[in-house]
């Protein structure tokens, strides 16, 4: 920001090379994001408008929009209640075992939505898991609260990862100053800590909100009718992509309105240190025995519900059939999943970096536009997004159609928003003065970026790639359409079984998605010393 201001008051100076390069990359990504929108408009205008109007003006559609809003609000609230204390416990207290908690708090992302929903449903009923194993019967979770619970339990890590990166980068001397100036701990939190966490909170809310708006699977199992249901029905029951295109456009308008508000709220914020003096590293709150017990109790409850529950249900299903015979197929399938998820994560992070730098260091109408476009891939319903790339690759690049390369690229575009959040949050907290010093010491803008900025925001980059990796492991509609024929990653194999009602046969694959995601997340966190701070 400082740099941009200097440029502004020194007319005639050239724009920094980094800014030009990043803008060009950002515009390229933005253009790719616009392809699906162009495609949807193309299809939408082939539809009969009267039918669309009739579909949209039913009272039921209004009810479904309200349901979507209520669900989004519920999920955001519950995710915050789970993620904020958890991130604080791990980042700012001396809670023993916090590294394990840190690891376990990310894993629920790997739980496939249907597994979470079935796990919750399986708790209830006279043939449910709880009744079978422990003889306890609970009411069936369903409707608004069932859907809110299911979605929150595997979405909260998005918020947690953003918040943890923010806590790790937060300059504690600010809090110390506030305390020295007479603020109570509560005031320090609400007036200093919380405002500094806002970019992370909003980044997390944004991805969770967009996910909730577009989710269909868990919501359907919980019998809560939301707007995405209308789209799903239009293509799955009527095989109709024209009306589905209209509905997808409406969903995108809703989603982009959310994105627009988020970026308005983010405008003009400035959280990094500007003064001289050294920033203080995180200092941990010492927990007493009671605090420790409470901390463990809370973390334990979250882990038990978000991870223990689905794992228990999967174990129960797996106990019903031997796993030995399918082991070779499972390993092959895992290799195929990995060959897509790893490059997708890397590519998404690589795309997110220039976009995030533009947003934070070089704010301008252009960078705002690029940052909003970056969310399009995540906001467009996955099936519509994939269809757009089917259309464009068949028109323009036949050789690219149904190749690994296209699948990886589309994943990276679709999940760019996930990588962007943590990276942007980390950048907000990285001091521009450090970059200025590097420039003063003779480093060019790109060299400064590579040698100063990148190492500083590493936790954010790692968090971003982990998010993309984990979602790419379990993604379905895009893989259905764009994966090479004969390619059978874990998620597709799992779906093949669940779609025929073979939950028991699907269980090993769902378990493998969780287990292998766990291995990867553990590996990345281990090699990322800063994230442990």
């Amino acid at each position, binding site marked *: 920001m400082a740099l941009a201001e200097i440029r502004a008051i020194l007319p005639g100076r050239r724009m920094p090379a980094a800014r030009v390069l990043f803008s060009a990359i950002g515009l390229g990504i933005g253009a790719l994001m616009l392809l699906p929108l162009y495609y949807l408009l193309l299809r939408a205008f082939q539809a009969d408008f009267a039918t669309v109007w009739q579909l949209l003006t039913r009272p039921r559609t209004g009810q479904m929009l309200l349901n979507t809003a209520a669900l989004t609000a519920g999920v955001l609230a519950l995710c915050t209640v789970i993620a904020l204390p958890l991130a604080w416990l791990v980042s700012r207290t001396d809670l023993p075992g916090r590294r394990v908690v840190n690891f376990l708090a990310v894993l629920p992302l790997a739980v496939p939505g249907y597994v979470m929903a079935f796990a919750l449903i399986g708790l209830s009923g006279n043939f449910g898991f709880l009744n079978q194993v422990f003889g306890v019967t609970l009411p069936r979770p369903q409707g608004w609260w069932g859907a809110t619970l299911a979605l929150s339990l595997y979405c909260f890590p998005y918020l947690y990862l953003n918040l943890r990166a923010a806590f790790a980068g937060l300059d504690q001397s600010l809090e110390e100053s506030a305390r020295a100036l007479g603020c109570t701990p509560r005031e320090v939190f609400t007036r200093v800590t919380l405002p500094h966490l806002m970019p992370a909170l909003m980044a997390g809310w944004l991805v969770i909100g967009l996910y909730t708006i577009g989710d269909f699977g868990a919501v359907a199992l919980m019998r809560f009718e939301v707007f995405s249901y209308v789209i799903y029905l239009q293509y799955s029951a009527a095989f109709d992509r024209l009306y589905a295109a209209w509905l997808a456009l409406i969903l995108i308008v809703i989603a982009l309105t959310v994105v627009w508000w988020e970026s308005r709220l983010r405008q003009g914020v400035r959280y990094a240190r500007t003064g001289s003096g050294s920033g203080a590293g995180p200092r941990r709150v010492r927990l007493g025995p009671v605090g420790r017990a409470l901390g463990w109790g809370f973390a334990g409850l979250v882990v038990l519900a978000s991870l223990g529950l689905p794992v228990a249900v999967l174990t129960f299903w797996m106990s019903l059939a031997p796993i030995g015979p399918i082991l070779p197929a499972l390993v092959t399938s895992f290799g195929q999943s990995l060959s897509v998820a790893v490059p997708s994560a890397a590519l998404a992070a690589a795309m997110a970096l220039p976009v995030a730098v533009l947003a934070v260091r070089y704010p301008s109408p252009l960078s705002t536009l690029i940052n909003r476009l970056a969310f399009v891939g995540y906001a467009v319903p996955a099936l519509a997004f994939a269809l757009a790339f089917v259309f464009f690759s068949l028109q323009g690049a036949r050789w690219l159609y149904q190749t690994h390369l296209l699948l990886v690229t589309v994943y990276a575009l679709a999940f760019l928003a996930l990588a962007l959040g943590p990276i942007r949050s980390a950048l907000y907290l990285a001091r521009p003065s450090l970059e200025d010093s590097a420039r003063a010491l003779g480093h060019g803008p790109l060299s400064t970026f590579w040698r100063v900025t990148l190492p500083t925001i590493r936790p954010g980059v790692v968090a971003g790639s982990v998010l993309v990796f984990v979602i790419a492991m379990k993604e379905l509609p895009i893989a*259905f359409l764009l994966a090479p024929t004969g390619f059978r990653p874990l998620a597709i194999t799992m779906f093949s079984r669940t779609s025929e009602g073979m939950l028991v046969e699907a269980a090993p694959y769902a378990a493998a998605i969780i287990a292998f995601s766990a291995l990867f997340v553990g590996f990345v966190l281990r090699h990322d010393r800063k994230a442990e701070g």
Partner: protein
Amino acid sequence: MRFFRTTALALAALAATPVTAQHLTLYSGRGETLVAPIIEAFTAETGIDVRVRYGGTAELAILLQEEGDRSPADLFWAQDAAALGAVAGMFMPLPEATLEKVPAAYRDTEGRWIATSGRGRVLAYSTERMSEEEMPATLAELTDPRFRGRLALAPTNGSFLAHVAALRVVEGDEAALEWLRGIRANRPVMVSNNTAMIQAIGDGEADLGVTNNYYLVRFQTAAPDFPVNQRLFPTEGDIGNLLLVAGMGVLTTSDQSAEAVAFIDFLLSDEGQAFFGGDVGEFPVTGAEVPERLDEISLDEVVRMAPEVDLNTISDLEGTLALVREAGLL
């Protein structure tokens, strides 16, 4: 940054995926667990390699529409006739010798797709909460007030919509709408699919529901004491006992249509039909002999009890959806 270097290498390797020799490309809306064995048997017998793209039937039907004449697929295997109808314009007419293997009701009037196996609509019920006297005699009777709050319904399910479409053909739109409204008045437990329906009945949330015949078998295999059973409606020719099909067509763009037709012929051979009737728990469509079934519903009984509905007449999905929406079930 080692992570990034490794993945850059991986990316480069992936970009160079080799092009392989000739093979059939099959888009399968049917799950791998069910159909992989019969595909392998075909390859073993003919030496023709089959590459399968598994996916949801709806997703694949839409994918085919999007691909148009650039589709790499030779064959499309769908869970239901409606999906086949949606892409029938992309199929080539099948040879007479193939078409003759199934009754006319189980293939496209213009011969562009053909059924590969049948599945019956049956009444699933709780063995704990449904007495013999209570059992409905017909599909129409499900609107009776005695089933208020006890019925499970999967309104988004393709087979349910096909069933409503058949009801429209047989009884007319007005009667169908009245039936749907009656079901709505009985406040059914809405479920997302057939598996969830069986689960709901087993869990005690609902007491009965109309579903496809092969779902319960999976639950019974996993837990022999599962408290759900299924039966046909006892009225001969009742629309409740509708027979639906999974089927297949050959794309006009296929450059290996002879091999593709050979694949269909293999599925319709006695060996193929016995596989669907036995291992998969469906019904043959060619009249082939099948092994004894797990549930007590025999093929002869299903054929005798089923209504005569030409599957070609139930392709108006938009109209059916509109009707279900009008009744307030969607």
